[in-house]
């Protein structure tokens, strides 16, 4: 069965990126938007035409690439990565639309965003480890250039730190991959063939010690991914990038790259390392709770929208990790769903904070005396306030929004690990309501001061790109059934190999 939709989602953005080099502004922006939308439409068609109740990989494409090393071009979707396709499909046209007014080098910026989109699509769908790592490694490069060229004052340092962390993370994942490749005979990179605990029981000799391939590779891989999807305490580069990157780039990072790294983690855990997972899941949940708490506490101390977003992202990552480690169908389904919701919620937050920063020139909402910097935007620009309110509600986990479904499923699923986790995670989510409400109150409510007096409401373009985000948050919150039916069979199959 050879469909070509997945390859089309790769090809359209790359063609768009190539065309950016030859076509001039303003037509190049339309071409960028068109190619991104084309890829997104292909992705949505792909997901819509997937069969429910089917746990297998669907829509596969398989071509041998480097025969002597058994590397093949193997792409497929199943329950684990279908939602991420939707996330990337919604996210990137929105980002390209949000960068419409970029004065300097708009072609380069949109071209790099297109390359990022293609590489994320590839990393999500690839079923061959080498190919997956290939696309994942590509996703590091555009970020470096996007931050380094279009960022704020300390942009080059932030980009450099991001590159160092990214290369180190990639190198660790790479070592894990090669270890896996050479420990099986015949050597293979294909996830299908490695699935189901084939690595259990393989050992290798390192400086005289007999080490288990599965455990060492698991540790290397999780260390590598925790550098890229920042896990406390390896998040230093992330907060610096949050301060310096342009808003759309940081949104691409926290709403695109971070969920994809969480997906990679869950895919590797369940498919490659079920044996290591059964002994390590408590650690994963522990790290998740730690991140949830640390993210929440740090967010409470933030006065700027950018850093606040970074720490909200950290908390969400912790929550998803808790779901991944719960080894409970409800929890795992919740974690997959939350990857999508977290992406959309963080994207919305990043976008509206970008709009506020552009209008008022700063992204601080509270000064040193804990007084408001801006205020009363709801009277000046009600549309912004409403949209931001909806996004904040989803991030808090308000019923009726997508965030609620994800949060609820994960918390219910974590009960199976220990009842205390429910209390702890519930407490951490209460922190979220504190800092989100504080931010909303200081920014949007209250009296108007001189800085927010001239705040204009959303233009048509901005409404056009904020709308898909908000609508999808509402839709996936009110009617999660089709997506959950898509996820569940795969999760059940996968978990059966873990136990």
């Amino acid at each position, binding site marked *: 069965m050879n469909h070509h939709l997945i390859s089309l989602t790769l090809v359209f953005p790359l063609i768009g990126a190539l065309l950016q080099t030859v076509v001039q502004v303003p037509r190049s922006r339309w071409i960028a938007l068109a190619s991104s939308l084309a890829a997104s439409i292909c992705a949505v068609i792909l997901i819509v035409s997937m069969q429910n109740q089917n746990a297998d990989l669907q829509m596969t494409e398989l071509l041998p690439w480097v025969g*002597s*090393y058994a590397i093949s071009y193997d792409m497929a979707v199943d329950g684990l990565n279908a939602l991420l396709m939707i996330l990337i499909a919604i996210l990137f046209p929105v980002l390209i639309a949000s960068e419409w007014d970029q004065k300097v080098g708009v072609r380069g910026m949109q071209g790099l965003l297109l390359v990022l989109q293609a590489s994320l699509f590839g990393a999500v769908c690839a079923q061959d480890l080498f190919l997956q790592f290939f696309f994942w490694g590509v996703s590091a490069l555009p970020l470096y250039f996007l931050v380094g060229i279009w960022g704020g004052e300390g942009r080059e340092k932030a980009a450099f730190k991001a590159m160092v962390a990214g290369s180190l993370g990639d190198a660790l994942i790479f070592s894990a991959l090669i270890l896996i490749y050479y420990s099986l005979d015949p050597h293979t990179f294909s996830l299908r063939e490695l699935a189901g605990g084939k690595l259990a029981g393989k050992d290798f000799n390192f400086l005289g010690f007999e080490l288990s391939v599965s455990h060492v590779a698991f540790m290397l891989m999780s260390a590598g991914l925790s550098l890229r999807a920042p896990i406390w305490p390896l998040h230093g580069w992330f907060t610096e990038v949050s301060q310096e990157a342009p808003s759309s780039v940081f949104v691409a990072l926290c709403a695109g790259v971070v969920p994809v790294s969480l997906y990679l983690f869950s895919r590797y855990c369940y498919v490659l390392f079920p044996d290591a997972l059964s002994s390590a899941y408590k650690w994963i949940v522990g790290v998740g709770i730690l991140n949830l708490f640390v993210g929440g506490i740090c967010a409470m101390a933030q006065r700027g929208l950018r850093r606040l977003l970074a720490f909200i992202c950290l908390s969400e990552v912790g929550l998803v990790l808790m779901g991944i480690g719960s080894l409970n169908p409800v929890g795992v389904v919740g974690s997959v769903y939350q990857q999508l919701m977290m992406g959309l919620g963080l994207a919305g937050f990043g976008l509206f904070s970008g709009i506020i920063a552009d209008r008022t020139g700063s992204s601080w909402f509270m000064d040193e005396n804990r007084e408001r910097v801006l205020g009363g935007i709801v009277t000046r620009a009600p549309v912004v306030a409403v949209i931001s309110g909806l996004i904040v509600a989803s991030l808090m986990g308000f019923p009726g929004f997508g965030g609620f479904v994800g949060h609820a499923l994960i918390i219910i699923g974590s009960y199976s690990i220990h009842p205390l986790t429910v209390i702890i995670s519930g407490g951490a989510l209460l922190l979220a309501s504190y800092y989100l409400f504080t931010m909303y109150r200081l920014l949007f409510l209250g009296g108007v001061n001189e800085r927010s007096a001239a705040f204009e409401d959303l233009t048509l373009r901005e409404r056009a790109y904020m709308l898909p985000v908000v609508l999808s948050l509402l839709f996936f919150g009110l009617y999660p059934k089709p997506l959950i039916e898509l996820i569940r069979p795969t999760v059940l199959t996968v978990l059966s190999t873990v136990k």
Partner: protein
Amino acid sequence: MKEFVYIMPEILIALTLAFVIASEITYEGEQLRLVTAISLLGLGAAFFYAVYSYQFGPTPVFGGVLCLDGFSLFFKLIFIALAALSIASVGQTAEINPGRRTEYVALVLAASLAMCLVSSAADVILAYLSLLFLNIVSYFLAAFGRKSLLSTEAGVKYLAFGSVAGALFLYSLAILFAYTHSLNIYEIHKHLLAQPLPPQVMLVVFMFMLLALSFQIGAFPMYLVTPDVMEGSPTPVAAFLSVGARAAGFAIAVRFLIVIFTQPGMTEGHWEVLGGIDWTQIFAVVAGLTMMVGSLLALKQESVKRLVGYLVVAETGFMMMGLLVLDQVGIAALLYNLVIQLFALTGIFYVLSFVFDEVQSDRIQDLRGLLKRAVFECVCLIAFLLCLVGSPPFPGFIGKFTLIGAVIGSGRYPLALVGILAMVLSTVAVARLSYHLVGDFKKSLAPLTSQWARKAYLTVLVIPMTLAGIFAGLVLKGAGESLGFIFW
């Protein structure tokens, strides 16, 4: 007499060289254009003839002195392509005196002739003579810069190291001859199989040969001269030497080390150590040190050409890993990396030479804002640099993967760890450079002159590189098959 057919590529290059020299002293018009045209034609003919020679199969030529097989033809194709690229770019550089450009073309042709001889030498004396030929022409090339003290210094340093290396090489070959009384390395191999050398003598021979060859490829501890030569010599020469001299060194290293120090192993395509000492351990230590030294020192450089020189040293360490696994897969990986580096290094130095002509400096600080001033060239530079250090999605990544994979496959995990660490360090070094290249993008800076010829040249380099990545399977298979021909 009919054996001359087998060395047709070398004869063609020699004839081209003769024409170039003759035209230099007789032709009074626009010499450079004529000379470039003749040499490109001659090199093109040699290239086609080399491709045509694949059908002859492995044959000894002139009584076993030269050896025509797939391995030497693979290298000849690389050298001829390199010479063509170098000659095509000579007209645009200001680092070489315009009055001496035809001399430069002649020297490049002579060096490529020497390299072709080096890659097919199967006789001890011819190997030494052709290596010496290559090195002497390289000394001239390194010192070719126009009114540049750095260039003269580079040439003199290269000469000093090179003569020591040549002496060590000759000494090790002399010991082998003294024990086996034959000059052909295949005969030597047969003698050593029947009656091996005492292990201490084998160790001495191996160490001297290793030191001599590590000068040629730029490995620890003879890497000291490589960054000086890269920085001091004119940039087109640095491009030529960094690919050509190293590839010739690898050709002779693979052939001599495998023929003299190994015997055919259990399975097809594997070799095992001969002679009682496990020289692959020494080789592994040297490779690891080379990688680490190259990547670490690249982090601290202030001169771009020197930084690339240290990256080249690190690359040598990586490629040595492909040799020490004594496996057809490993050596195919080494050859694949050489092909990738042919395009990447030529491209890097080409852009650097263009920038040097405009900015008159190769300090990193002076290259600030290059992305704004020359977008296409800067993007190409960054792409070639990332390909060199092995970053996805460039084909250099596949090359690095094959090398590290070969090492892990043979169970040397610490070396693989060192390799991955060195990859990260070299990526950080390149990131540090591009940090400066992309800086000041928002300021308005004077754009550098741009010519379509420059862009065409860079495109000519990018396309084969991309193809080598997409069709990596084919290239690796071709490299592996050409090894099957090593005349045994």
